[in-house]
């Protein structure tokens, strides 16, 4: 064929393609204007979803991506603080009879370390991953309750600042991160130290509950059409299970800390044995929350692992149903374990046996997940990049931690190793191995999506190996230390005990671990400016967040996609089906049914608002001065109520009328009768 004929063919082929598109869009707009119309829509969307600027903008921006990044950065700062506290402890314990820290300093530091890591780092950061990624993975333009989401962030931030203000002023809590009574009660912890702890719990627990409501609302109701529950990404499943666990577990700690605070401030007798109260009641209430809490930290990390493995193994996940059922059953069984923290108390043996059995059985769903992931990796040509490296690290560390957990599940064996450094080793193996390593993998994996740039692979490898080796050096010897009789929470020990060598090794390991984290920080700072530019899908992954630009536009999706399978991008046809009809001049997203994601509503997404901050400040007035006088609760309640009223009844951004009432039509597309959504 001659060149001109080829050209003619090409032109007519293009024309035919355009005609197809025009037919597909069922639009009457001339073909050359189609691209312009799309671009025009995009610009309108940019304007409609524009983020507020300036200082006021920082306080009112409800974009879930902005809020999630704030959570992640804030939580990471707390992670560094917690790490510094750990380093100080390791220096103190590196030699027997050391005088680096006074007993009071040490006791405050280990309390604040645990409290920071559990409440100010782990839960917020895993929730934040959900807040960023769940809307993108399900095809929504924002979360279900954006202003509530913003409120959640402020209340978390204030709680964290509150704790650290106390700590810096030498009135940090010093009764341990779970603050058992009677030690933490009014008689044995005078002053405001424990009150600060108890109130900080209130702040962070409200934040977690809010995050849970937001995630469930989004995952259930805002999915793109075609994303039935059967096609829900495992990341989202993990976030949903976690959120339900938060809903049912947090009230217990609310009561535990509430009773403790009221015992201390207004002389109630919940935990005072002299007046019929019970010290063990506190332990039940705390651990009924406390055990699910560690699964709340762990299960989202399981959700990070699945997509990373799928992407790198280049195949569908093995055992989707088994993985979903494992997540759900882990969540359920997690509520039936809490007494294993109390085996040394005089709880009747029959009761203890039940919890011992449950604590062992929970290893089974975790095991199923491990097996399914190995099956997915098996035989695949794996190019092991940093995200996968961290996932492999998870396997090694978490499985070991889980096995020591099986040991702790045995009542008699627990009576030897409970409250010793063996437990310290176990909990760090499962939490750091089970949650922090997958988290780092996830940060490397999704950093390109959030920022548009790749993190350095080379630095990533250094990051991983320093952390992996450092971690094992710190915590493996602690198993031996516990067996050798070293209890937890001791600021020093005698030389005759012989614990010095292993402690020294652990302390050296701590600095190696810390240097690994430092490499990460340097990597992030460098990559933001000089990392390789990532396109929309640098990993050639399968889920919807990779179908939009990096970083995503404020409105996430120009057109809500119609999902065709569990692996949307891999299963997408050349001309991808999308939803039309959502406004470009008002903030809207699509609400669909829970089971089958059938379109149901055009949901208004509220724009920026000052009221979440105001409600958070009102709550602060109730809670912080509340540790000095009960009247603060009254004043704070009134302020909070006023702010809530303004939030719900005063927001002008809310559009109240239905589409029918306004007679509104989408301008670029005319309706075709056969494509009516299901009648509601």
């Amino acid at each position: 064929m001659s060149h001109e004929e080829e050209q003619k063919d090409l032109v007519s082929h293009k024309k035919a393609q355009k005609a197809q598109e025009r037919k597909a869009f069922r639009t009457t707009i001339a073909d050359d204007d189609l691209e312009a119309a799309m671009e025009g829509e995009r610009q309108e969307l940019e304007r409609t979803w524009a983020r507020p600027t300036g200082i006021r903008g920082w306080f009112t921006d409800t974009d879930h991506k902005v809020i999630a990044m704030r959570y992640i950065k804030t939580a990471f700062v707390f992670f560094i603080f917690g790490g510094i506290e750990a380093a100080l402890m390791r220096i103190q314990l590196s030699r027997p009879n050391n005088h680096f820290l006074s007993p009071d300093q040490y006791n405050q530091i280990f309390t604040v370390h645990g409290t920071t890591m559990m409440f100010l780092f782990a839960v917020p950061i895993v929730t934040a991953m959900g807040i960023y990624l769940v809307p993108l993975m399900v095809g929504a333009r924002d979360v279900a309750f954006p202003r509530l989401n913003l409120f959640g962030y402020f209340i978390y931030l204030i709680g964290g600042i509150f704790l650290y203000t106390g700590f810096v002023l030498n009135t940090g809590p010093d009764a341990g991160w779970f603050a058992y009574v009677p030690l933490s009660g009014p008689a044995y912890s005078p002053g405001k130290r424990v009150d600060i702890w108890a109130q900080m719990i209130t702040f962070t627990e409200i934040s977690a509950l809010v995050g849970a409501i937001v995630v469930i609302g989004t995952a259930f109701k805002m999915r793109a059409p075609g994303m039935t529950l059967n096609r829900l990404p495992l990341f989202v499943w993990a976030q949903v299970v976690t959120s339900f666990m938060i809903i049912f577990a947090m009230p217990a700690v609310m009561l535990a800390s509430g009773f403790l605070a009221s015992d201390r401030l207004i002389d109630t007798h919940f935990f005072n044995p002299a007046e019929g109260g019970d010290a063990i009641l506190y332990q039940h209430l705390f651990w009924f929350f406390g055990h699910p809490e560690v699964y709340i930290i762990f299960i989202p990390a399981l959700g990070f692992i699945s997509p990373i493995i799928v992407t790198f193994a280049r195949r569908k996940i093995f055992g989707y149903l088994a993985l979903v059922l494992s997540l759900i059953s882990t969540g359920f069984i997690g509520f039936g374990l809490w007494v294993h923290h109390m085996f040394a108390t005089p709880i009747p043996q029959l009761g203890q046996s039940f919890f011992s059995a449950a604590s062992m059985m929970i290893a089974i769903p975790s095991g199923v997940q491990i097996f399914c992931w190995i099956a997915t990796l098996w035989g695949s040509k794996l190019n092991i990049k940093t995200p996968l490296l961290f996932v492999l690290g998870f396997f090694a560390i978490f499985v070991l931690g889980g096995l020591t957990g099986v040991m702790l599940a045995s009542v008699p064996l627990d009576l030897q190793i409970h409250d010793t450094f063996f437990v310290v080793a176990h909990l760090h193996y499962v939490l750091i191995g089970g949650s922090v390593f997958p988290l780092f993998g996830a940060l490397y994996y999704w950093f390109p999506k959030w920022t548009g740039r790749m993190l350095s692979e080379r630095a990533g490898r250094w990051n991983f190996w320093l952390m992996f080796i450092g971690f094992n050096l710190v915590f493996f010897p602690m198993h031996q230390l516990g067996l050798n009789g070293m209890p937890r929470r001791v600021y020093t020990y005698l030389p005759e005990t012989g614990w010095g060598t292993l402690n020294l090794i652990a302390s050296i390991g701590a600095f190696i671990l810390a240097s690994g984290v430092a490499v990460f920080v340097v990597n992030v700072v460098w990559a933001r400016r000089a990392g390789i530019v990532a396109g929309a899908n640098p990993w050639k992954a399968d889920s919807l967040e990779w179908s939009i630009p990096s970083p995503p536009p404020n409105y996430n999706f120009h057109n809500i996609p119609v999902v065709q399978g569990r692996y949307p991008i891999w299963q997408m046809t050349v001309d991808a089906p999308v939803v039309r009809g959502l406004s470009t001049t008002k903030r809207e997203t699509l609400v669909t049914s829970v089971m089958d994601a059938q379109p149901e509503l055009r949901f208004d997404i509220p724009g920026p608002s000052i009221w979440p901050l105001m409600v958070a400040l009102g709550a602060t007035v109730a809670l912080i001065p509340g540790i000095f006088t009960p009247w603060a609760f009254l004043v704070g309640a009134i302020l909070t109520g006023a702010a809530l009223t303004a939030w719900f009844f005063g927001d002008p951004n809310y559009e109240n009328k239905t589409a029918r009432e306004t007679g509104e039509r989408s301008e670029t597309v005319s309706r075709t009768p056969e494509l009516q959504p299901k009648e509601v």
Partner: protein
Amino acid sequence: MTTRAVIDVTELPRHEFDTYDPVWWGNNLLLAIETSMFAILIATYFYLRQNFQLWPPPVAQLTATLRPLPELGYGTANTILLLLGCIPMVLADLAARRGDRRTSEIGLVICAICGFGAIVLRSFEYSAVYFRWDSNAYGSVVWFMLGMHMLHLMILTTETVLLAIWIFNREYDMKHRVDIVTVAVYWYWVVAIWLFLYAIIYFTPRLG
């Protein structure tokens, strides 16, 4: 990658009742949280009870060893009031679904009055319990139960009043009709929780 539209959602409404609307989910998740809290509070009540031979414990200053059972008067009146208050709320609920503005308005107002009445009666209920919150563990847990529920009564009444004010002065549109149905669910929940608390606080001591 090209796209083609296969679903047109222009005609979809913005709000709908029940599970269609995210507000339903948000509200019910909040209620799930509070239900868990009350369930654990009730468990605490029974747990503490195990520490006592007599429940409520005897009052020290009386010459005879008296078991001061909580007096039934205010509590029972409150229960009846709350149950009766369900009627206008059901009417307002159904009216909102139908789009009947007048009935909704009247229903909300009557409910608000019932709410105020319940709060007043609740204030007297504290004195029907012989002990203060700082007397002993029994007093602490019973005051806490009454107090947490009272907090909900206050929030509920405030919401009802504000919604009534809005309905009277502004639009009776779909969003606020959905809000009325949401508040109704909250009302039913507050009453249902109270029935459990009422039975437990006032009757379990009487059962021996």
